[in-house]
């Protein structure tokens, strides 16, 4: 029997975003990463071109994280106080394709580091690794608006991915990214209309919207992941069927969310039926990542080295072309 697959007809494709710049391109990265460009739903190769695979980033902080689970000590304990060494380890030993530098130390409640300190951390990490960088602020609007102009300037030419722009606070970051030609993360609070609106607002500042990476906000497995999952599926299907205002690749703070879950951290002594804590934590993170990757996630920001290995294999398996 001959089988003719059912294919959706799409009219649009997802923006292709390149992160990082090599010496030829005006930066100092030894490699760049390109995401997006999809012309079909995730991993449905029979349906259309999927030119770029999703990638995994590892999170590096500019301060020793006060609340990470103890199980991370064996991997990062010796480098927690040295972002450059931490980043180097993530790339060289743990296979991170991108480094996500979180400037948590700038948070007034976590040391209130100055813009100069933040720039120093950025430069140290840029000097230590050759992969592209994501730079996240501390999450407090006022402080982030103070550090991002300096970060954007210091990273000129490096084609960073800066975040996050939110509906209530996008102008400073957008202007900084625009001025020094960086890409930008637009974060919306699990709301597809705000996601769309924010992309439009950023575009109205003359920022090239094809340089936006959307963060629809995800929750961890077991804590409302299905909301973000469905928003990502809706956004992707909407984008492919013609809504250009959502035709952007997506990023998710998987490690950050997954490792907040009780299930990732609770000891087996407290929950004897739940199995060993570290393996459970890894799988909590990996399951969060794999399910969202099925919905179209392009950058999974992770924490555990083993999760990187698992997710890279998952992506490689799913990027094998299928055919009929």
């Amino acid at each position, binding site marked *: *029997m*001959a*089988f003719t*697959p*059912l294919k959706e007809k799409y009219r649009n494709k997802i923006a292709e975003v390149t992160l990082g710049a090599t010496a030829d391109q005006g930066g100092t990265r030894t490699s760049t990463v390109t995401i997006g460009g999809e012309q079909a739903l995730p*991993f*449905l*190769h*029979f349906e259309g071109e999927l030119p770029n695979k999703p990638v995994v980033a590892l999170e590096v902080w500019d301060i020793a994280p006060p609340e990470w689970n103890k199980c991370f000590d064996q991997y990062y304990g010796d480098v927690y106080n040295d972002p450059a060494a931490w980043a180097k380890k993530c790339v060289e030993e743990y296979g991170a394709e991108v480094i996500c530098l979180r400037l948590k130390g700038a948070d007034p409640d976590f040391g209130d580091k100055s813009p100069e300190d933040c720039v120093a951390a950025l430069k140290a990490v840029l000097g230590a690794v050759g992969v592209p960088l994501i730079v996240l602020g501390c999450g407090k609007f006022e402080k982030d608006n103070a550090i991002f102009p300096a970060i954007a300037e210091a990273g000129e030419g490096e084609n960073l991915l800066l975040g996050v722009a939110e509906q209530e606070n996008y102008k400073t970051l957008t202007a900084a990214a625009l001025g020094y030609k960086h890409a930008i993360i637009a974060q919306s609070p699990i709301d597809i209309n705000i996601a769309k609106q924010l992309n439009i607002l950023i575009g109205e500042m003359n920022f090239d919207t094809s340089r936006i990476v959307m963060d629809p906000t995800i929750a961890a*497995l*077991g*804590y*409302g*992941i*299905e909301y973000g*999952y*469905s928003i990502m*599926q*809706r956004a992707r*299907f909407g984008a492919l069927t013609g809504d250009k205002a959502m035709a952007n690749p997506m990023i998710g703070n998987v490690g950050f969310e997954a490792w*907040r879950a*009780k*299930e990732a951290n609770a000891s087996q002594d407290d929950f004897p*039926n*739940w*199995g*060993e*804590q570290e*393996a*459970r934590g*890894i*799988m*909590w993170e*990996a*399951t969060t990542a*794999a*399910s969202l990757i*099925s*919905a179209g996630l392009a950058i999974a920001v992770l924490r555990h080295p*083993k999760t990187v290995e*698992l*997710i890279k*294999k*998952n992506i490689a*398996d*799913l*990027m*094998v*072309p*299928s*055919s*009929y």
Partner: protein
Amino acid sequence: MGLTGLQIFKLLPKTNCGECGVPTCMAFAMALANAKASLDQCPYVSDEAKEQLDAAAAPPIRKVTLGAGEFTRAMGDETELFRHDKRFFNETVVAVMVDDTEDVAAKAEAFDKKVYERVGLTFYTDALAIVNASGDAGKFKAAVEAAMGKTDRILVLCSEDADAMAAALDAAADRKPLICSATAANFDKMVELATSKGCPLAVKGADIAETVELAQKAAAAGAKDLVLDSGSRQPSQTVADLTQIRRNALKRTKGFGFPAMAVVTSEGDMDQVVEAVSYMSNYAALIALRADDDALLLPLLSWRQNLYTDPQKPIAVEPGLKEVGDVTPDSPVYTTTNFSLTYYIVEGEVEASKKPSYILAVDTDGISVLTGFAAGKFTGETIAAAIKETGLEDKVNHRNIVIPGGVAVISGKLEDASGWKALVGPREASGIPKFVRENF
């Protein structure tokens, strides 16, 4: 889905006899189209018309039930491509594989203990899949019997040798196991076993086309409860096949209207679970894997629970006063809404604070704190009413209640309405342990 009144009318006797209780056949057809009447009410409808109408009314994906007795699982009967369009209905059956060359009794005993509780829900691994790795019919039957002695959950019998399958079914047919699988090579015998024993049957072709061809043949031979295995053992192709099966089934392409299964092939246990997540996210109605570590299955089953929730319905817990730990009259009291996500996050953090406490879950129809506040369902008045209704005042010897930091503004009204003192807690539940260290 379904036929219009006019299409149904063409299949009726058009005698307007009125015996169905409706004056004309046309009116009866309209009633049928709107599901306000049943075809049984017409004594004169032809068998041919009945078959056509039944076929049109049947769900696009057949509902196939595995197991017998207390522990059964339904597969299929799905109607959507995306959960956000409506919802997914029948949760993926997770089957843990064990070879008949292993100590099956021990494995089955361990399997039967796999029950996970989180956020007030209980998750089970549904099925034990016994694989005829020995190639020996006697060993296979003995393994199946050993498993039956240890677990009442569903059995999946994995052998392509019809004689081995016949031997195992001699012992296990009453349990309605899934026969896995009929292939081109063993087709007639396997279909015969499935129909004579009344067991569901998986059909596996070399590819999706052959699988569907076999399914049509099996259905024609009387085996209606089928599960499709496209034969792919490569994740990307399996995802493509699962998607094609779902799309074609919803379009009612012949031979596709059955639940589909996937077999995990990665080596590492963790890799297997990640692979299973990809299949679960892409329509698999049954997934067979070998990983059986609790730490790995809990996340997989949690994803299943999340994926199959009804997106239109906030999940609520029973409102009222909840006890966390061994409470005393001195225990602190928290309040939050009865949106399950919110409630269980708060409960988890209160538990983590290691301080036995009461949580007053106010009935907000299952919406979150800020939404409930905006909707007037989580206010000083509603909390005060809940304090009275639950008899909280007789349970504790103090009058302090911790409210979510996000609604600090309701403190005054709450204090006026209840006479209790409102303690403004953290904005995020994750701040509760710290709050407890500093305040209690």
